[in-house]
């Protein structure tokens, strides 16, 4: 089973700040991976490098058989890597249906209307189909953002903090819908998250970033309990064992 994405030796510095220090990662198909880490640890940088927004100083990224370093975001999207954004990027003056229709039409599916209907169902957006995207509540905007990303027939879906800005009681519901849709489409999911409950519940693998490097990589149980992760990411003070 070949990897869906392989990053090798990624380096990226902004002046004196090392945002990516020799990052090498392999992602298998049909998995759900969560990237965690404090702000500035390098997870968003990694996301931005993979999607072509940033160019690494050195290193390779293999998607399929191709090195996609240097490709534009548009080219990378067309190859099958799509992303959602921390702040949902929608077409505010179009309706939900029209937003999805644009996405499906660009993805050049055979029947954009049918694909749109399917997306509306899968993401439970049908009740909002006729509403203008600019007027939607935040949780629905997040769902629409992901729905649009998924529609470009992606093989790899990157979610940038999918539950940020969403109220606590809605977070799980939204992630349920998103993950259900992703699973149905058979895409690999990488999501950046700060909420450890979400991570524990939905991720099959967790990668922890710190200071531009990776300090842990494994199952949620292992990583979320690791001492260095708790110190540098989750932020728990580890009481020293009593004598």
């Amino acid at each position, binding site marked *: 089973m070949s990897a869906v994405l392989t990053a090798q030796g990624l380096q990226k510095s902004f002046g004196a700040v090392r945002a990516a220090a020799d990052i090498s990662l392999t992602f298998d198909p049909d998995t759900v991976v969560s990237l965690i880490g404090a702000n500035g640890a390098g997870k968003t940088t990694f996301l931005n490098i993979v*999607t072509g927004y940033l160019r690494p100083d050195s290193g390779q990224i293999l998607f399929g058989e191709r090195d996609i370093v240097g490709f534009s*975001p*548009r080219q990378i*999207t*067309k190859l099958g890597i*799509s*992303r959602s954004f921390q702040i949902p*990027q*929608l*077409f*505010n*003056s*179009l309706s939900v249906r*029209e937003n999805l*229709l*644009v*996405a499906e*039409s*660009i*993805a050049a599916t055979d029947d*954009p209307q049918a694909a749109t209907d399917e997306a509306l169902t899968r993401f439970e957006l049908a009740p909002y189909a006729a509403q203008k995207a600019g007027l939607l509540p935040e949780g629905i905007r997040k769902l629409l953002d992901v729905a*649009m*990303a998924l*529609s*470009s027939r992606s093989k790899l879906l990157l979610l940038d903090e999918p539950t940020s800005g969403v109220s606590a009681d809605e977070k799980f519901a939204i992630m349920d819908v998103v993950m259900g849709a992703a699973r149905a489409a058979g895409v690999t999911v990488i999501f950046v998250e700060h909420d450890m409950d979400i991570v524990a519940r939905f991720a099959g693998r967790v990668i922890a970033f710190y200071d531009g490097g990776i300090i842990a990589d494994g199952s949620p149980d292992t990583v979320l309990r690791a001492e260095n992760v708790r110190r540098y990411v989750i932020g728990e003070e580890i009481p020293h064992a009593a004598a």
Partner: protein
Amino acid sequence: MKVATVAIGSLVALTALALLSPQWLVFMAMLVLAKGVVVLGLLVLMRTGLVSFGQGLYFGIGAYAAALLSHHLHVADAAVMLLAGAAAAGLIAALLGLLLAGYRDIFFAMLSLAFSMILYGLLVKSAALGSTDGFNLHARTLFGVALAPGVERRVFLIAAAVCAVVVALLVHGLLGGHWGRLVTGVRDNELRVTYLGASPYRVVYVNYLIAGTIAGMGGALVALAVGHVDPETTYWTTSGEFVFIAILGGTQSILAPFIAATIFEALRTMASQYAPNVWQMSLGLAMLAIIMFLPAGLWSLAERRRRSV
């Protein structure tokens, strides 16, 4: 279907106008159609989120291309001149669009202005093209048929009406389907468009090309109607008038540019008779009023009334 009704209705009305009205009204209708067509191009650009302050460039190119064919190459067929005007403008738009499609907002607006002023400068300095006086066209025919002077204008108006309606229908069709949604997408959120796999640059380029080409057609129409061309066609005031008409009409409907152009021409005719020295001031004040109170143009008045009924 509603669109077909409006299209046919317009053609019938304009044909009736062409055959029955006094000459001055026929002439004014020609100008309205020509300017309306240019503003239609502006509408396409505004739907993409851009304002061009330099459509006068293509308007002038269209007019001069038609005139050059007539004056120097002794081409008489109006249809040929019309096509030449549109083609010449389209060619330049295809070239300049490569640069301009990378710009937005103020840059786009002012760069388009700059290019129109370059042409103005070239025309004014060109003695061969008549400098500020311009030059005349020779007698025109339509599809090889020479017409008596009184009849000529009327026939040309019908031809112009057909062109305008066809172009309007094409633009309407274009903006109504996937392209229209994509264009709105580019206006709303270019980042998203890119991350869906499309190219905002290409969308802007194509729309700029369309706007330039039909502005050239409008210029040729004016040359045919007036029988004379001069650099004023590409001067900033001309471009400014197009922008004014576009704002007046708003971008909601394909009819808006033509209705707004009608109102504009009527006002201009009155102003030039009674108050020529305050015309620009009136335009400026009207523009401010529209921006402040009716940002969607006069069309929003019709919308408001429809909604309250």
